[in-house]
């Protein structure tokens, strides 16, 4: 499933300028993803759009600023809510695509 990638996060756009001027957090103003990684075993993703791929060794998540890939071993999705998800397992890499 393909998600259209938004350009709103890019610098120079009106929304970005407004957010900068008002000193608002970007995750709220622009809907940018927030990723909390605890050690190598836990990652919490907020403001995501959907799951693109989910296997034992790879989780691909679509966000407003592109895809985030979590690679590792024994990856599990601990919970999966409207705006937040938690990935557990042995995470070896996290990259923006």
């Amino acid at each position, binding site marked *: *499933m393909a998600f259209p990638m938004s350009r709103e996060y890019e610098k120079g756009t009106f929304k970005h300028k407004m957010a900068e001027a008002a000193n608002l957090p970007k995750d709220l103003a622009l809907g940018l993803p927030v990723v909390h990684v605890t050690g190598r075993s836990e990652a919490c993703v907020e403001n995501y759009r*959907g*799951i*693109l*791929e*989910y*296997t*034992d060794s790879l989780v691909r998540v679509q966000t407003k600023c592109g895809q985030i890939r979590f690679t590792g071993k024994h*990856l*599990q*999705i*601990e*919970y*999966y*809510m*409207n705006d937040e998800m938690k990935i557990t397992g042995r995470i070896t890499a996290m990259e923006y695509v």
Partner: protein
Amino acid sequence: MFVLLMRYLKGYLRICVTSTSPERFLNLCRNRGILLWGLSPHGRDYEMYISIRGFRKLKPVLKKTKTKVTIEERFGLPFFFHKYRKRKMFFCGAVGCVMIVYLLSLFIWNIHIDGNQTRTDETILAFLEEKNTVHGMLRKDVDCEQIVKDIRQQFDDIIWVSAYVKGTRLMIQVKENSDTITMPATEMEKPSDIVADKDGVVTEMITRKGVPLVHAGDAVKKGDLLVSGRVEVLNDSKEVIGYQYQTADADIFVQTVCPYEEKMERAYEKKIYTEKERRKYYLKWNDIKVSVGTTKNQYQHAERLTEEYRWTLGEHFVLPVSHGMEREREYRLNKKLYGKEEVQTMLSENFHRFCGELEKKGVQILENNVKIHIGQNLATAKGTLTLIEPAGEQRETEIIEVEQKTEGEQ
């Protein structure tokens, strides 16, 4: 913790999802607000947990994504009730238990009294019982304000009372007045003398009321008058014209010689317990006794021990039920002889105890001539003690009538 409890109460399932595009299934679930958790891939399938409510909303999603779902396991209270739906007695018991707990919570099961030092719990409880405040009464019948008033009215030395109901306990807190002075009862005192209650020599004498008839250094015998309660009233020519009677009061110390003798047989019989014993356990309800076992035996010598425990609910609520154990232990007697040192220690210990008791009574020991003789069969502690001890006992004063001579007769 709370989340886990709510999940258990509402019930949830572990499902296995087989699909060509499981990601689409997951995203659709998310869009429709179907909560999934604990996702783990198993080959081409995915296992996850879903709530019962979520599972009911799953049908259109499954149709749309051509996904196959199998239920692996069911968890939670709704499934528990469904599983045991035929066990009616179990549910009756559970409901009955809740009802019993509710019914029991309607009564007062414990009256706790705090802060009392001179008045015992029993005294206050007995008074409360008179006022119909007892263990086992209904909670709604407890009138705390009245209890406070009643206690204040009944006990003068209690200066502050607080009563409140906490759960099924009636808590009573009191504060006693520690400065209370008890006034001695005023009564008409009879005139009395002080007479010697033992033989000896007076060493010290302080007279507060009455006429002293002996002085320090005088030897007195039992029955001798020491202080007279009759005070003579003299006229100008030193003639007795009357008497004033009063209760003689004095501290008199007398030096006495007290004989001391204690004999002790050296031979004694020692109990040696054999391992044999018989036990009887019982449960008693007023006069009805139900027992298990017996204490009947053929022992030559035996001692009986009884332990009984009264059942109480909480602190003071005594039930008319008790349980206990009777035990008959067999023993045989072994004749033995105390050793010389042993008997000497025992006799001197007894003598010291005797001296200690005398000192407690305010007696001073001046001289000690007690000696211990140990014979073949008998040990004796014998001698005399010279003591200074308080003496004197009250005796009614003899009333003497004085003839009133009129001036005309003179």
